[in-house]
């Protein structure tokens, strides 16, 4: 059976803010993301289905049975095998023909981020560690590219879109990885919810369709069904966004 793909995105092109031109931008876009687990999995799933042309991701380790309750790109048959290869295969199946997916079985390092940000249009932080998210924040700003950061814990989730040229960044909020760490409690419904909201902002950014809540920290309290949006202050002397433009 021949599967017609030419009309796959017809319904989303009905969105007035996306249209044909925006869709073409998605087809030609490259994203770099840290982790494709409970949050990054639904996020990249949405991007692949929306037609993003190239997805580069870093995710280390082998799949555990306890991952399966939230990691939508993984499969029970893959327990004990590398997560990256499974997520790569899932994204290839979900994307349009010709989608390029590269899953790297490693935790992202500053040199990796700098290398891939030369090709990427957008960096996305979906990792459970501040270290990985800050690496992407710094690399995106240094490359003059936007960065979307998303995180969750229990019933809470946060989202931040960092403009390449203006406003506060993640390091303004978290200058250094804080000491408060924990084995985070997670329900897939919550990680997928913030992953989907982050994907929406990624599509907006890649399609170059404002408004995007640049520099506004969005806090979602799922238990109370409440959302707060706060414009962050730039931290004086921020070693990341305070250096904007100097390396260009």
């Amino acid at each position, binding site marked *: 059976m021949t599967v017609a793909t030419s009309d796959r995105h017809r319904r989303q092109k009905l969105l007035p803010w996306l249209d044909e031109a925006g869709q073409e931008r998605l087809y030609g876009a490259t994203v770099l993301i840290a*982790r494709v*687990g*409970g*949050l*990054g999995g639904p996020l990249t799933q949405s991007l692949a289905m929306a037609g993003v042309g190239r997805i580069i991701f870093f995710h280390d380790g082998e799949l555990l049975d306890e991952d399966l309750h939230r990691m939508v790109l993984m499969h029970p048959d893959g327990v004990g095998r590398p997560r990256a290869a499974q997520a790569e295969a899932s994204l290839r199946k979900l994307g349009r023909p010709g989608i390029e997916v590269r899953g790297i079985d490693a935790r992202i390092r500053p040199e990796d981020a700098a290398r891939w940000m030369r090709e990427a249009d957008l960096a996305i932080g*979906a*990792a*459970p*560690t*501040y270290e990985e*998210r800050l690496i992407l924040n710094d690399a995106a700003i240094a490359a003059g590219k936007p960065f979307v950061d*998303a*995180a*969750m*814990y*229990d*019933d*809470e*989730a*946060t989202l931040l879109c960092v403009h390449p040229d203006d406003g506060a960044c993640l390091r303004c*909020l*978290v*200058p250094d990885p*804080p*000491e*408060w*760490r924990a084995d*985070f409690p*997670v329900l897939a419904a919550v*990680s997928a919810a913030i992953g989907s909201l982050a994907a929406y902002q990624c599509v907006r950014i890649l399609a170059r369709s404002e408004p995007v809540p640049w520099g506004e*920290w969005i*806090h979602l*309290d799922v*238990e109370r069904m409440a959302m*707060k949006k*706060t*414009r*962050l*202050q730039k*931290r004086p002397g921020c070693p990341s966004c305070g250096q904007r433009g100097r390396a260009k």
Partner: protein
Amino acid sequence: MAVTFEMTKRLAEMAGLSRCVEVGDGRTLGEALQSLSNRLREAGANTLLQNGDLHPSILVVVDGEARSAHDRDLPLAGGETIDLLLPIAGG
């Protein structure tokens, strides 16, 4: 002049306090934050403090606007609710 701090769920858990904490001294934001820092210290929530002050990565929001250590002299009328938001890490 009482001021109420409203914390996110995770922050309240780490503080060992309820999500809403009322402090009595709050003519300025700095005074209110100092009172809160004292409560956190009494509760043993030392990871939420840095050099005796509220940890700088905890976002302080007054009337929807983010505030920082530079805003310590911000006058408070009393009766305000100040939001405290904690960055989280999980994916």
